[in-house]
C-alpha cells in the first residue's frame, strides 16, 4: 500500500481546468519530484493536497485514509498528516522564530510545552539556526526564513512533507543552505513531494520524477530516465531547453 496515492485528481479555477486527472503514488521514505513548465499545475497539485485549492474530482489516499476533501474533517485529516513549505516562506511576521515553530503544536495540538520547546530547538539546529530562536523574520535573510519555514512545517511531525519551489525566491548563493537542510531530511527518511526547478538537486535526491504539462502528468520515471532519455516529445523539448546549461 502506497504511503501517498493520488488518483485522477481534478481541479478548476472557474471554467479553466488546471488539473486534468493527476495520478501518482509514493512509498514511505520516497522522494518524488514534480517538474515542468510554469503554469503546468505542479504547485496546484500540492495546494490541492493541502486543501487550499478545492478538487473537483478524484481521491487521495494518505497513510491509509482515503479522502476527497469533501468535508472539513477530511481537510483537517489531510493537514494532520502532511505539511507544506511555500515559495515565499509565509512566516508569521509578528512572531519570533521560536513562536513560529511552537504556535501550532502548542495552541492547535495542545502538545506538552517542554517537549514542544525541545523539539523546536532540535529542528532549529537541524536547519542550522539554533542561534536565531528569538529573531523576527524581518531580521533574517531569505534563506534563513525558508529554513525556519521548513522547521515550522516539521514541528507538527508530518508523515509527508510537500515542498513548493522552496528555493525559487532565493538569491543563488542562499539556495544551497536550504538544499542542505532538505538533504538532511532525505537522509532521515522523510517522505517528500518536491516541486522544483533545481534539476541537479532533483536528480540527486528524488527517487522518481513526474513531468507535468498543461495540467497532466506527461511522463514519469527515475531522474536518469526522464532527464537523459525522455520518451515523449514534450518532455524531450522541455529538458533539452533547461538542462543545456
Amino acid at each position: 500500500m502506497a504511503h501517498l496515492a493520488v488518483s485522477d485528481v481534478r481541479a478548476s479555477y472557474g471554467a479553466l481546468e488546471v488539473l486534468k486527472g493527476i495520478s501518482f503514488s509514493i512509498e514511505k521514505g520516497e522522494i518524488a519530484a514534480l517538474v515542468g513548465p510554469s503554469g503546468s499545475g505542479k504547485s496546484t497539485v500540492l495546494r490541492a493536497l493541502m486543501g487550499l485549492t478545492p478538487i473537483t474530482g478524484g481521491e487521495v489516499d494518505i497513510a491509509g485514509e482515503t479522502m476527497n476533501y469533501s468535508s472539513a474533517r477530511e481537510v483537517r485529516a489531510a493537514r494532520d498528516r502532511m505539511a507544506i513549505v511555500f515559495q515565499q516562506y509565509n512566516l508569521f511576521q509578528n512572531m519570533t522564530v521560536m513562536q513560529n515553530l511552537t504556535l501550532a503544536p502548542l495552541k492547535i495540538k495542545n502538545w506538552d510545552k517542554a517537549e514542544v520547546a525541545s523539539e523546536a530547538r532540535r529542528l532549529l539546529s537541524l536547519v542550522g539556526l539554533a542561534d536565531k530562536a528569538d529573531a523576527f523574520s524581518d531580521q533574517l535573510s531569505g534563506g534563513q526564513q525558508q529554513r525556519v519555514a521548513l522547521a515550522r512545517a516539521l514541528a507538527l511531525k508530518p508523515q509527508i512533507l510537500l515542498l513548493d519551489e522552496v528555493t525559487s525566491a532565493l538569491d543563488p548563493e542562499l539556495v544551497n543552505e536550504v538544499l542542505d537542510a532538505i538533504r538532511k531530511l532525505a537522509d532521515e527518511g522523510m517522505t517528500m513531494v518536491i516541486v522544483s526547478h533545481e534539476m541537479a538537486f532533483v536528480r540527486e535526491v528524488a527517487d522518481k520524477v513526474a513531468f507535468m504539462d498543461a495540467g497532466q502528468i506527461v511522463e514519469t520515471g527515475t531522474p536518469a530516465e526522464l532527464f537523459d532519455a525522455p520518451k515523449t516529445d514534450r518532455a524531450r523539448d522541455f529538458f533539452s531547453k533547461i538542462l543545456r546549461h
Partner: protein
Amino acid sequence: MNYNFQFGVVWENFPALLEGAWLTFQLGCFAFAGGALIGLVGAALKTYAPWPIRFLVDCYVVFITNTPALIQIYFLYFGLPEVGVRWSNEACLLIGLTLNAGAYLTLILRAGFLSVRITEIEAGQTLGMSLLQQVRYIIVPHIAKSIYPALANFFIVVLVMGTSVGALIGVDELTGQAINLSSVNYRWLEYFTVVAGMYVVLTFIASIGLALLGRWAFRVKARIF
C-alpha cells in the same frame, strides 16, 4: 511694542485650566475609543458584507469625511433640539466627535484589513488553524501592526483639533476654559500662550504613551519626535 505681560492672573487660574486639559484628554480618549469601535465594524462590513451594506457604510464615510466636524456638532447641538432631541453640550460634543472619528477610522482600519497577506493565512490554515485561531493569531496582530502609525497620528488629531471645537458649544475643555477665563480679564495673549504650551505637553504625553504601547504590543519602532 510695549505690551506688559502679566502672567500672574493665568497662574491663579491654572487649576481651572488643568481641569479643562483633563476634560480634553478624557473627551479625546472616549471619542477615539468609540470611533475605533465604529471603525472596526465599518471596516469589517466594508471588507466582507454584501453590497447594500457596503453602500451604507460608504455613505456614512463620505458624508462625515467631506463635511467639517463643527457642522456635524452644530447639527447635533442646534439642529436636533428643533425636532425634540436635546442632549447636553458635552454629550453633543462627544457623540459628534465619536461619529466623526468613526468615519476616518473606518478608512484607516479598512487599509489594515486589506494589508493582511493571504499567504500568511494559508500558512495558518495548513498548520490546522480554525477561522477563529487565524483571526486571533494572524489577522488581528497584523492589522494592529500595519495601521499603528496612522492610528497614533489620528488619535492626536482627535485629541487636539477635535475636542477644541467644544469651545464653540460651551464645553469647558481646555480651549473653552481659556476663552472663558481670558474674556473676564482680557489677558488673551498670556492665556493662549500658556494653553498652547499645555496642548503641546498633552500631545507629548499622549505620544510617549502611544509609542510605548506600540513598542510593547506591536513591536513598532515608533518615534516620539
